[in-house]
């Protein structure tokens, strides 16, 4: 019996009159690599942002390790304008709308589509800052160095992490001076430093050449093994997706159109239509 790590129920995100994510439901089990794919503008990143607390969904519920963390139902003006389904399903329950840092604290860490490293910090500090979340010291004990032991422990962990991801040799360089592939790697290392249970990668291979993509594929597979990690990724590189995903969800115009193993998806007519288009007069 596998444990469900992340569960989306009827998640809908409507901006004004545009429904970016429409009634999306999905599940991720422990230890799985699940990919969320779809054509450009399908609503993948929006779905990501509703899960991580960047956006407040218009309707629906997100549960993490069996506990609801995000929940909303159409309210106010949106009550009339709402175009999605299941408008009343969560109406009786309280609204949950935590900020992204609270969601990260629960054990979900993410990377960004356009790399967002801290530019003035070194590679080492970029990872070390992510450890800030796990500190037990307050501002006084940290300022007056009563947290020496904790700080030393964190530094040790960061050094080990950099060793694992193969960035120890550049640890004192500025994060932005790294080549693109290594910056991606550093962003993943930074997310891992928060000790997440679920790692969420937003287009990790964006802008990479085939060789770098292969390296990244191996890297993600290794992370799953070494850290016993559950991974949700958004990706456009089908090689990568088909190689490492256990299951795939496909969305188009915000709607879930297919889900299943890579083989099933490759042969699904709706997916092929979504990607290649359908003849109008057929």
């Amino acid at each position, binding site marked *: 019996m596998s444990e469900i790590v992340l569960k989306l129920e009827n998640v809908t995100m409507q901006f004004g009159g545009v429904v970016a994510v429409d009634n999306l439901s999905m599940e991720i089990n422990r230890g799985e690599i699940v990919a969320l794919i779809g054509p450009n503008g399908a609503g993948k990143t929006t779905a990501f942002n509703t899960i*991580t607390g*960047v956006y407040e969904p218009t309707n629906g519920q997100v549960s993490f390790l069996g506990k609801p963390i995000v929940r909303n139902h159409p309210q106010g003006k949106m009550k009339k304008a709402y175009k999605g389904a299941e408008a009343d399903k969560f109406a009786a329950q309280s609204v949950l709308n935590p*900020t*992204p*840092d*609270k969601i*990260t*604290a629960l054990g979900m*860490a*993410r990377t*960004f589509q356009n790399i*967002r*490293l*801290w*530019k*003035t*910090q070194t590679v080492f*500090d970029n990872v*070390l*800052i*992510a*450890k*800030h*979340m*796990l*500190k037990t*010291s307050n*501002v006084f004990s*940290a*300022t*007056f*160095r009563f*947290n020496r032991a904790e*700080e030393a422990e*964190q530094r040790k962990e960061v050094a080990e992490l950099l060793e694992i991801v193969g960035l120890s040799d550049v640890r004192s360089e500025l994060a932005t001076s790294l080549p693109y592939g290594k910056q991606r790697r550093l962003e993943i290392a*930074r*997310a891992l430093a*928060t000790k997440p249970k679920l790692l969420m990668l937003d287009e990790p291979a964006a802008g990479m050449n085939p060789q770098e993509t292969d390296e990244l594929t191996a890297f993600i597979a290794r992370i799953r093994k070494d850290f016993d990690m559950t991974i949700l990724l958004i990706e456009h590189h089908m090689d990568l997706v088909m190689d490492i995903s256990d299951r795939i969800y496909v969305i188009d115009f915000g709607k879930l159109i297919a889900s299943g193993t890579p083989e099933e998806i490759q042969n699904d007519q709706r997916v092929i239509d979504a990607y290649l288009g359908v003849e109008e007069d057929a």
Partner: protein
Amino acid sequence: MMKNMKREYVITAAILLAVLVGAFVLDAALPSYHIAIKVVKKACVYSLVAVSMNLLNGFTGLFSLGQAGFMLLGAYSYAILCIPVAKRAGVYQYFDGGIVQFSLPEVFSGFLGGTVGPVVGMLCALLFGGLLTALCAYLIGLPVLRLKSDYLAIATLGFAEILRAFFQWNAIGPLTNGSNLLKNYPDIGGAAAYIILVGVFIGVILLLVNSTYGRAFMAIRDDEVAAEAMGINLAHHKRLAFIISSFFAGVGGGMLAMYMGTVQALSFKSAMTYEILLVVVMGGIGSITGSVITSFLYIAGLEWLLRGLDSGTFLGITSPIFKNGFRMAIVSVIIMIVVLFFRKGIMGDRELPDLFRKKEKKGGGAK
């Protein structure tokens, strides 16, 4: 490697010690009203306030312009708590001697003796001013910190102006003496005392900046979205930076009151904030050393070295254009030169030890 690191810190410590010894020598050799001592004292105060502003603007990336308001709070706290009881009737002549009828330096000299007591009392008054300012910053921060960049600057600037007007209000005159001067309160000591005091406060800020919280502040400055996604609570950390920065601005205000000898709300104009902002930007946003060095250069230049430009004779040259106001024209030119040739300020984001580290590396590379 280890040896090199130590070397830089030894040089830095030696420089700081030399400055301290120099201050003691100044105190011993010159009368307390000598311009050199005045300059050192004022520069110390400006250093502290500039560093506190740098903590907020440079390290956390919150563009706040409320510094003068916070200094005003600190200055009034210090003055009100330290005026000797016997002189209160004279100071508060329009308000029946005011409502505060004790003086911290006198209270403490009651049970700590006449030498230690007043100093402890003055320090307590300074810290009280800081804490009051921090409390005030907390309350203002609740609504204001939701704003970003320019809007935050406008809101804090407005707050500082409101505070200045409020302190001149006659209805609270028994406490603040209305728009009249507060005076006759004691000064803590000479140049060395100021350097030690400010050194301790800046040392604390330095420790904070290099702690896990300081790193979190810098993460917020570099990329707020990423910081939040990595579990850093933005509201909490911004508030923290705002409160701590205000605390030191309040203490700095108290020290400014000590230095000036009189306090009047009228003098805490927004121009004072801009002066400090100028020091921060010229020194380098994100460099504590830069703020300190620039404070000293700026105050020494403005108050002392360039005085001749206003009074007719500068560097032995007498010229009819050296009239009142010419000094400010020259200062403007100097500022423009700095802005043109040191885009990131005098120090950029480097600190004192980095200076020697850099040289070390370059020397090694040349060989």
